[in-house]
């Protein structure tokens, strides 16, 4: 092994070189600036979407402090969750005492209707028999016998935040939903948003479903929890999918999953219970939303209301109005698989050119789906998907094969700055801009919002950087 220090002193110029990119892409184990968080954070976000549910981490208290602060920074909202504060003695003797005392105290303080227990690393490495502990807690009277407890095993060393969401969602169904009975089948469409950090998206789904006259349950629905109104009082449980509707979930007329990679096991479980199940891509862009509308129309058996057609028309109008600001522009994107599928699909519709697509929590099915999507459009031909790469890889790409814009969460700001290109913030977490999570990026409304963000960012840049001679009134 040659000690590089002896031969090369790093400089920014070297970091920006092809040679460095090769070296950077040759690394095998070191991960630098990954665009993924860990499973229990996703489990917590899922649990926030169930009414009167208290998220409870079985593990070290530090994990819960991290999830809460990370989510609060993004949503600018309170995030209530507890842990059973396991410490070194739990590592020796197991986490039984902590769990029982933990649920006892949490129940006394916060009176939940359901507790969502999910694990962090410590409990998983030790192999705690958590189901047995929960049974004991009930047996000892720490919590009522009939208090539902959903259990998700979500170690940080498997999957990412999106699989944690999936695991917790399935756990709710396993713990709460009664078996499907032919005579009890309800009239509702259960719509699962997936790991979504835009309460604006959830509200958009609900708005459209109402227009479509579809009886529905959004499961889970954290929109009122992570986007709660300020009415002068703090509510611990300001909303969520009603427990009765979770219990009745397997009697759904059918299920519609709006993301693929954040709902793999939950959708499989629902499907295994013989509930008619459909999974469609996250409805970003016209085609994505068209698919959503068609799926819902198929469910209701009704014609698509004219109001929706009008909405679609306005979105398409916005696209044609603004196509010149996006067509032919080169984009790099990073984020979660479902989000990337949607955003790339939207860019292709606009004639934008995705160039680098970095997905740290990529999977083989996602890779295939993304490659198929890119192959389907002449605007997708310049794109390369970089599965399981991170934002330090992305930085090398940006400085050696330049693009016009980066799309991703706030963590992308350093790479964007180094490449001297604008960052349009879409994803999670967004910790340095306000309100973005409140506006939908899905649906026809989302199409207009995306165009506004992307086109106006380019135009702001043009104005800020143009010399007097070409500084014009019209753009």
């Amino acid at each position: 092994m040659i000690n590089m220090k002896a031969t090369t002193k790093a400089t920014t110029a070297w970091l920006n070189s092809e040679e460095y990119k090769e070296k950077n892409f040759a690394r095998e184990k070191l991960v630098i600036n990954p665009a993924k968080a860990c499973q229990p954070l996703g489990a917590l976000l899922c649990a926030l979407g169930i009414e009167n549910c208290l998220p409870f981490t079985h593990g070290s208290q530090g994990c819960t402090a991290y999830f809460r602060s990370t989510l609060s920074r993004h949503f600018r909202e309170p995030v209530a969750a507890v842990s059973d504060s396991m410490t070194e003695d739990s590592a020796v003797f197991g986490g039984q005492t902590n769990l029982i005392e933990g649920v006892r105290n949490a129940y006394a303080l916060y009176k939940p209707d359901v507790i969502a227990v999910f694990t962090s690393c410590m409990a998983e490495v030790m192999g705690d028999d958590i189901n047995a502990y929960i049974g004991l807690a009930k047996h000892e009277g720490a919590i009522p016998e009939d208090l539902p407890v959903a259990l998700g095993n979500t170690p940080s060393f498997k999957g990412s935040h999106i699989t944690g969401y999936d695991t917790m969602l399935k756990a709710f169904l396993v713990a709460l939903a009664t078996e499907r009975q032919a005579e009890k089948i309800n009239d509702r469409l259960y719509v699962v948003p997936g790991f979504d950090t835009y309460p604006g998206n959830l509200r958009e789904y609900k708005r459209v479903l109402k227009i479509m006259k579809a009886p529905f349950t959004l499961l889970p629905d954290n929109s009122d929890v992570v986007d709660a109104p300020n009415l002068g009082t703090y509510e611990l449980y300001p909303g969520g999918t009603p427990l009765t509707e979770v219990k009745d979930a397997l009697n759904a007329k059918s299920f519609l999953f709006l993301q693929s990679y954040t709902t793999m096991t939950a959708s499989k479980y629902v499907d295994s219970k013989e509930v008619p199940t459909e999974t469609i891509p996250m409805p970003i862009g016209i085609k994505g939303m068209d698919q959503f509308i068609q799926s819902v129309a198929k469910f209701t058996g009704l014609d698509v209301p004219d109001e929706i057609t009008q909405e679609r028309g306005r979105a398409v109008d916005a696209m044609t109005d603004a196509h010149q600001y996006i067509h032919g522009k080169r984009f790099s994107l990073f984020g979660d698989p479902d989000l990337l599928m949607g955003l790339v699909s939207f860019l292709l519709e606009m004639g934008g050119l995705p160039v680098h697509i970095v997905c740290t929590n990529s999977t083989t099915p996602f890779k295939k789906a993304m490659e198929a999507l890119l192959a389907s459009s002449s605007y997708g031909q310049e794109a390369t998907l970089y599965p399981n790469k991170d934002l330090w890889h992305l930085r090398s790409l940006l400085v050696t094969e330049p693009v016009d814009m980066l799309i991703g969460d706030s963590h992308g700001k350093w790479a964007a700055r180094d490449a001297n290109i604008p960052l349009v913030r879409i994803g999670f977490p967004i910790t340095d801009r306000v309100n973005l999570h409140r506006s939908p990026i899905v649906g026809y409304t989302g199409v207009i919002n995306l165009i506004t963000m992307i086109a106006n960012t380019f135009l702001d840049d043009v104005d800020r950087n143009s010399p007097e001679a070409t500084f014009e009134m019209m753009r």
Partner: protein
Amino acid sequence: MSIKETKEFRKQVVEDVLDIYPEKAKKNRTKHIAVKDDDNCAGCAVKSNAKTVPGVMTARGCAYAGAKGVVWGPVKDIVHISHGPVGCGFYSWGNRRNLADGEIGVDNFVPFLFTSDFQESDIIYGGDKKLETIIREVVDLFPNAKGVSVLSECPVGLIGDDIESVARRMSKEFEIPVIPVRCEGFRGISQSLGHHIANDAIRDHLLGTGPGREVGPYDIGIIGDYNIGGDAWVSKKLLEECGLNVVNIWTGDSTMEMLQNGHLVKLNLIHCTRSMNYIVKHMEETYGTPWLEFNFFGPTKIKESLLKIAAEFDNTIMEKTLKVIEKYEGQMAKVIESYKTRLAGKTVMLYIGGLRPRHMVGSYEDLGMEVIGTGYEFGHKEDYEVTIPDLKDGTLIYDDVTAYELEEFVKKMKPDLVGSGIKEKYVFEKMGLPFRQMHSWDYSGPYQGYEGFPIFAKDMDMAINSPTWKIIKAPWTK
């Protein structure tokens, strides 16, 4: 209310609030809360630095947060590897405002997350080989890194990895310090043990191993300032105006060499005693380097501290210091005067970490405000011992306060402002209560020194007097 009535009222509040707990938890929590009573201060002491009651909503973090997030993370020319699964590193990436000056990726690695991203196979087969590869890759990709720290997350300790031997081997091969830090999150009961472990790692692997330097007569170090929002830079500037020469800062905007040479000063000034008292005591015992605690929040404490510091040096320093104080006191009086009508008499409740539950009290009092409640997230007995005498009669003191308790205390004591962290912020804002984050300065700052105090005053005024609080109630609601 008379002071006697106030104290009785607050004691009753505590009793009422704790009533909801199951017996065992209630017994435990009762010991952590007290109302300061000058007539009978035997009851002022609170229990601290004890295990958190399971299942309550604690604000506390873990040893990793204390070691990586607080002490090691700000050291800019060392690559810090978050060793274990991806989460801990992800959540502690870029969200503590320890500003650092340097070329990112060349000699400044503060804005990075380096992680070994443990997978299940690493748990089963161990992560030592992976760690070795990772260190090789770090050295290859960042040849200017002065050293590498390995910050263990929970699984590393549970599966029995030997990161010390990997570190030794790599350190020898690459001739740079590779520092194993055993800060698994399950160790201890809060961030606090993580600080201690981090201090010990500096002591065992860096301190005294540097190139050395001649110690000038006015050379000093600042210890335990993490440069939140540029605080350490402001302190450095102020001390240098007084004729002193700040050669080290630990660890805000610091370098590995500063850690190696920490003892090579005439005096170490310690800001956050909670997180770094261990190492200043060690430097005193081992190298005879004296240390002194200081507080640069608010003109009263700044003056007190500057005079105390100057007294450790010769007349030249004292004369300059007196001039500096004179120069700024007038400006500060104007600042106080300009906010007086808007802030005087307003009450504050604080709940913070480190040193701030006591250090911030003076800066509020300088503005004519009153701190009616305060507490430490992870304080020890000695923190409360020095805090309580500084507090007014009747102040409510709470240790490791739970979210429920703090909410209820605030509802009943109705302060005009709450100062705490991100997890608390939006709870109180939903109640219609002005709030400032007092860990991150709510993305403002610096708050230290004469430069910071006007910003602090402006921010407190902005929080309390924002017109947004007045429109919460819709005109048609009853």
